[in-house]
């Protein structure tokens, strides 16, 4: 299934950071959803900024427009504020893209656990992530955020460090 680009992708002004504040907000919102949906489709969990600039997301060869490095940083910052992005290094050259936010993961896990009657059981996050459900494929990347998320769901999980395997109990 090929990726369906949104109409903005072919609108040249989309690739120029708009000075008008209201217009810019709408523009950034469109960029954020574009980045997230692209990453979800392509099963991308991390992004390298310099590589990204060359990727099709920020680079539309057909209309000869690409988003500048500064503008990409602005988009990433917007994603970070929304909770969809975490920087992996201080230099902000690589980031984690969470097209599903940790809270959403947490909810999903909780649902899966409840559905399968695994409440109050101890299991490793490996088990969790390698179930049949392809939805949970990204969990291995999000172990820590997931823990936080699970814990935040009213203390519904606890983590025990056991021989470098993180176990989780979902209540």
């Amino acid at each position, binding site marked *: 299934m090929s990726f369906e680009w949104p*109409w*903005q992708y072919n*609108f*040249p*002004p989309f*690739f*120029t950071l*708009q*000075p*008008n504040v*209201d*217009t810019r907000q*709408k*523009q950034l919102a*469109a960029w954020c959803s574009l980045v997230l949906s692209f990453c979800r489709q392509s099963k991308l969990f991390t992004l390298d900024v310099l590589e990204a600039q060359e990727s099709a997301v920020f680079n539309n060869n057909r209309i*000869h*427009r690409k988003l500048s490095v500064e503008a990409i940083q602005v988009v990433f910052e917007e994603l970070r504020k929304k909770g969809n992005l975490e920087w992996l290094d201080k230099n902000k050259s690589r980031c984690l893209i969470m097209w599903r936010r940790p809270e959403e993961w947490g909810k999903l896990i909780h649902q899966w656990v409840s559905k399968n009657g695994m409440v109050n059981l101890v299991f490793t996050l490996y088990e969790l992530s390698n179930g049949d459900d392809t939805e949970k494929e990204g969990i291995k990347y999000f172990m820590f955020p997931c823990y936080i998320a699970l814990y935040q769901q009213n203390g519904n999980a606890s983590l025990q460090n056991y021989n470098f395997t993180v176990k989780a109990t979902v209540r």
Partner: protein
Amino acid sequence: MDRFVWTNGLLEMNETLVIQQRGVRLYDGEDKAKLDVGVVLLSTHRLLWRDQKNNECCICIPLSQVIFFEEQAAGIGKSAKIVVHLHPVLENKEPGPYQQSKYSYIKLSFKEHGQIEFYRRLTEEMTQKRWENTPVSQPIPTGVGPKAGRTRAVGIVGIERKLEEKRKETDKNISESLSRLVGRPVIMHNTAMINVISLDSANHYLSLQAKEMVEVSKSIANKIKDKQGDITEDETIRFKSYLLSMGIANPVTRETHGSGTQYHIQLAKQLGDILQAPLEERGGMMALTEVYCLVNRARGMELLSPEDLVNACKMFESLKLPLRLRVFDSGVMVVQLQSHSEEEMIASALDNVSDKGSLTAEEFAKLLGLSVLLAKERLLLAEKMGHLCRDDSVEGLRFYPNLF
């Protein structure tokens, strides 16, 4: 500072106080006077100074001793000053704080401001010379001392004095005739070098009043041309005071006040007439540079300076003329008709852009017959309103309808 005499600070019978200002320090020429900060008082007859801390210490100088005076702008860490140039010290002068001084001028340093008003009042008093009309009971030494005081030899100094008196006579005659024509007192200090640009604005002002005055000023200019190459600092100073007395804002230093001079008011009215038709042709708006070119081309001889133009344009609103001076965010200044509606312009801009899909400033200018500068301003304004968005690339800056 050696012209000052001690005084008890009381005013005489016919003498009235005009203005006083605290926080003033005196300077003997360039050096600080060995006095503290005090209050400077201006009366109809004298200039007085009293020590703020010690009211007994009070000195004065008659206004007749003043040749002329000028403002010295404030600097970093320096207060604004008024420099007062004085006649030579008189032989029979009463004792004062200084026995002698190598300077023939003093400065008043306004540490607590107030110099503008003081200067204005001083100008008035020096113009009106009320001390000549109402001599006070206490004999005040005037600039013209008794013959017995002249102990200097009648040599070159005598010849100089004669020339000086002759110049004063000429100045007085010209002053009188000018005053009659202008309808307000005009003083002419020594004829001085006048540079062409100021002469133009002086000329223009005169032509508004009376033709004879134009002849007079032209004859002065010719007189000056003969002395070409002789510009001394003294004469430049005198020329400044000359212009001031003519009622024209000093071209060398800053604005004196925002309300504008007669000249600007007249000019603004003239502009109101001249610019009606061109503005309508150009869709109600013209950049100030275009106005400047248009007006000066029309005038031919007596050109306007950019400053005069801006000052005149600033007065449109207060004079209730149907024109307005408008400054955009980017700093571009335009003159537009009052009837000019911004919303209409933006709506039409949006239509144009939508028709063509996208436009650059140049394309838009061509479409409307506007200058590129104004076209860009209009597009930027539409963007600011949220009707357009921009596409900035190596190809240039284009504007699209805002589909976001």
